[in-house]
């Protein structure tokens, strides 16, 4: 469903994730793309890498545009066509946030994919509200001083039918979540962590290893929330210290041991909270 010849950087797991997501969704799918790396991968006029129709909209409006597309399809009796949004973190956590929040509030029938590379990457790597604490970006060269927003929790607070995190390093889990989302009606959101090779300072062959470390260290836990209530943690343990994840990325090169300890504590807290919710729901 994704064609070769697209414009993703060599080794980019955004393209890889898109490939497996599209293959899982199948041909009865239409996409709305917000300006982002994902949109660039879809292709520039007149070429498309996607074997499904894609509507490229503005950074603010992807969820609104998808709502419109959904209604148009419903009017034509095409309830079986899956409508998806593909957007970056900037277009989700920041600039498209209001459109997304309202769409979820209306429980529009769509799957929203947020490819979270933790910054405005196709425009050269500026910080977004998804950029983690202390990460260096083009606009925060000395490291960002505020924490990353927790999108999945915000979505859970909307009592969205389905919210999940996923990773290209766990392809079977990603595919399962896409299938599961496809079987649910209403708004669903899947956030896929995308280690960005130039943005994070990684060698071309390291994105999967990094995505795997994000999960193994608990920096990016794999979990699902249904109706904002039922939490399922998809991994039972964390097997490595956060340091292992931070040390391989150039964007964290300036960190002191204390900085790393602080991030470890933050990750520990988040993990404990998730584990509790998962155990009690």
């Amino acid at each position, binding site marked *: 469903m994704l064609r*070769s010849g*697209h414009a993703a950087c*060599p*080794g*980019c797991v955004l393209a*890889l994730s898109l490939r*497996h997501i599209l293959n899982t969704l199948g041909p009865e799918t239409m996409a709305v793309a917000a300006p982002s790396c994902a949109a660039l991968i879809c292709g520039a*006029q007149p070429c*498309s890498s996607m074997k499904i129709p894609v509507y490229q909209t503005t950074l603010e409006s992807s969820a609104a545009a998808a709502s419109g597309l959904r209604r148009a399809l419903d009017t034509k009796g095409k309830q079986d066509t899956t409508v998806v949004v593909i957007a970056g973190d900037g277009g989700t956590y920041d600039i498209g946030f209001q459109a997304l929040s309202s769409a979820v509030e209306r429980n529009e029938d769509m799957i929203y994919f947020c490819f979270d590379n933790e910054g405005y990457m196709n425009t050269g790597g500026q910080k977004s509200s998804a950029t983690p604490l202390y990460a260096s970006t083009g606009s925060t060269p000395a490291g960002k001083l505020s924490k990353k927003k927790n999108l999945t929790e915000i979505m859970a607070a909307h009592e969205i039918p389905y919210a999940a995190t996923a990773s290209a390093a766990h392809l079977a889990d990603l595919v399962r979540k896409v299938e599961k989302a496809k079987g649910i009606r209403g708004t669903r959101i899947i956030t896929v962590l995308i280690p960005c090779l130039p943005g994070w300072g990684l060698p*071309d062959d390291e994105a999967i290893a990094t995505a795997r470390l994000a999960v193994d260290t608990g920096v990016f836990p794999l979990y699902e929330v249904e109706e904002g209530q039922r939490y399922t943690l998809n991994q039972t343990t964390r097997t490595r210290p956060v340091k292992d994840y931070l040390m391989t990325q150039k964007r964290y090169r300036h960190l002191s041991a204390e900085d790393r300890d602080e991030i470890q504590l933050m990750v520990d807290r988040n993990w404990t909270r998730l584990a509790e919710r998962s155990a009690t729901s």
Partner: protein
Amino acid sequence: MNQAVRAIWTHESTEVIKTGSWRLALPAYVNLPAPCHKACPVEGNIAVWIQSVENQEYRDAWLTLIENNPFPAVTGRICHRPCEDSCNRGQLDEPIAIRCLERFVGDLAIDNGWAFPETAASKTETIAIVGGGPAGLAAAFHLRRMGYAVTLFDDQQQLGGVLRYGIPPYRLPKDILDAEIQRILDLGIDVRTNTRISSQTDFENLRAEFAAVFMATGAAVPKRLPQLDYSQPWVIESATYLEQTNSGDHAQCGERIVVIGGGSAAMDVARTARRQGKEVAVICLETETAMPAQRDEVLEAMDEGVTLIDGVMLRSVTDRALKGLELACVKVEFEAGAERGEFSVNSIAGTEFTIDADTIVAAIGQDPDITTLQDSLDVEAGLVRVDEQQQTSIAGVFAGGDLVTMQRFVTVAFGFGKRAATEIDRYLRSSTSASDSTPEQAVSTDMINTHYHPQAARAKQQMVPVAERQVSFDEVELALPGDEALAESQRCFSCGNCTFCDNCFDYCPDMAIKRENGGYRVNDDYCKGCGLCVRECPTGAIVMRQER
């Protein structure tokens, strides 16, 4: 006006953009050797047959094994397993228990009566093999499979050499040995046992009668200690002792036995004597961990009640008649030399002591019998000299095994047999040797993505309880149960040997890996050279190659 409206929807595929032009390096599927394979004296394609075990295709595993070694049930028991020392998995947790798995497959073949596949079409030449030990039997097998007629001479009543007359049944049961030898004989081999090729005339006749000759008469002449009077009834050679006990006779000896030597033969004598209820001490020059015997053998011997007195030298023996022998010993500093078998010792003054005994068994090594051979063939340092093609100084006469090397191991002898067959075939077919091809680098641990190989403990060798071992010649090491063999096979990284796991295919962001003819191909139109496929390969079967 009929002007065309410019489409605002896409109507072309990105496939027209050949992103392969971005690339600096291209992945390539390779089939590099695993380090275990390179370390194995018969180059046993270990990764391949272990993968068959993993797929529970046991007969395939056996067929791969016997390509290089017709005795997997023997090596699966007594090989010195250099493969395990070089196993890549050893750097993650513990090496694969290759020998245990080999025995598992070898025993299955015997239990199920699997026969060797058809031999190649018959060739006209007949090859003479002198010596029916491991080197000679392996050569017979490989030559016969190539279609040659083989005549095998041995001076003993039964074939097997050291495997039969040296190594005791509690390490290598005779029914196992018999089964693996019989399978070779079933290929149709003209066996002449009780036939000693001893004179120069015998040798000349062989050369005249046969297209080629392979000499594999082993090393059966015991080295002698100047400190011992070998004419005394209380001195016995290890070979004599083992041959007698292995044939069911009891060697004439007293109750207190001292074995001199630190190799496999010394351990075999000591453990055999324990089984006959004797009090046994082993004295050797080396310190315990430097002994040439396999470590397991030493530990098993001590478990069975053998006393080890390491790092000492025998100086003299006094026969005190009814009171028995008194052995005067001294502690020594032992230093191994560059070659196996070479060493220097320094006695440590003031450390003299004595040991009481009734019988001494000397097991300090053996040399080949070259008394008649040296009239015809070049010899060097007591061994028959061979070139890289294993040919002696006479064209058409090849040699191998203990006769030509100080590497005194069963699997080394099997390797000699295998290579001799190949070289004899080349000699007779006048084809050139392949030895000019550059040796390939083995797969290293950093080429393996160990994420796909979760931690798992190595299979544990189970043993018969010590109390039972001390009174029986039954096999000491127990077979690996089927489920444990399967679990052990799953631990193998399959170094350099694609397992068709699809990772390279699945992890390509550019859809540049194609499944094709049951394998994979890189589409260089679109491969951007990121290397993710290589990085995520669990077996090291794919590498990046610089292009520009």
